[in-house]
């Protein structure tokens, strides 16, 4: 798994994390290309089903990046998103998946460097966890087929 490059989906709020990503770009701060950003009008729009579907379709990790606590443009969308992430984590725990594959992260629009650092840290964490259990089973199957 040395050359494992995880696929990570980041649901980013238009008012903070997405702008922070933009700022990281303007400041020429690089972050891992593994992170695929999906812009949402508010993290309150991200439902548990979106996170689950991302995992089902093969994402190795998913994070939701919303405004700082108390700073949501729509009052409490980020708090709702946190609860939903926790809900998905409970589901994953029941299914025997690593709960660290999903996370909620808070930042403001001005935190470009933090965005890049978070993307890097999350990518490293997922690299340590390895491919998602769905991918792992396919890798194992392929290896078995090759060895036979």
């Amino acid at each position, binding site marked *: 798994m040395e050359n494992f490059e995880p696929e990570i989906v980041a649901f980013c709020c238009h008012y903070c994390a997405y702008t922070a990503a933009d700022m990281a770009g303007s400041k020429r701060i690089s972050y891992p290309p593994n992170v695929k950003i999906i812009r949402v009008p508010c993290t309150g729009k991200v*439902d*548990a*089903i979106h996170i*689950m*579907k991302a*995992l*089902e379709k093969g994402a190795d990790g998913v994070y939701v990046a919303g405004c700082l606590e108390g700073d949501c443009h729509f009052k409490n969308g980020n708090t709702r998103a946190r609860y939903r992430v926790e809900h998905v984590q409970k*589901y*994953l725990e*029941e*299914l*025997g*998946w690593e709960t660290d594959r999903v996370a909620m992260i808070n930042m403001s629009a001005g935190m470009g460097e933090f965005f890049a650092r978070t993307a890097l840290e999350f990518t490293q964490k997922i690299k340590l966890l390895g491919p998602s*259990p*769905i991918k792992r*089973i*396919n890798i194992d*199957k392929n290896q078995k087929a090759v060895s036979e």
Partner: protein
Amino acid sequence: MITAEQKPLSEIIEYISPYDRILLVGCNECVTVCAAGGRKEVGLLSSALNLHFLKQGRTIDIKEMTLERQCDPEYVEELVSEIDRADAILSMACGCGVQTIAERYKEKPVFPAVNTKFMGASESQGIWAERCRGCGDCLLGITGGICPVARCSKQLLNGPCGGTSNGMCEISPDVECAWCLIWERLKALGMEKRYEEIMEAKDWRPAGGGGPRKIIREDLSL
């Protein structure tokens, strides 16, 4: 409304493991409102089951459907077109819905995906509490709109027991004493006299003590 909670995934998985094609059916009524078995929860459960089986290297075919009402035969009829393509049905409706499906599609195994809990009302977002036991002989008119059958732990009908303490029930500091609530309410309405009237022993036959209950409205039946 009837409230429900999703069963542990392990139990659901055990039910459906022997089958390859599952028809997962939600209901648009009560279980949608209490976020246990509506369209959204059907999607979420389907996704979770897929994650589980994909992890095992197995693919199962889950067809999602959400009916307007699972406890009505005319809506359950909508499953006819899908039923042949399914090995088993997983229902996210309350017990009434599961049984309506089981009765209509006798040749298919039906499994519940939720535990039906109680008839309750929403106290606030995400919190539901029991308010009615369906005793078949409503007392709310004489108890100030607060039900001692559903809300008193002992279902007492003539005032609180010795377990009441500062308005709370002895079973838990989070449970309000129904009789304390009734007294406060009657006092606020100036109807204290009602509290002094002794209620006779309740006839529990309409509450289910007389066997399974049924309502027959001849003016409506065909």
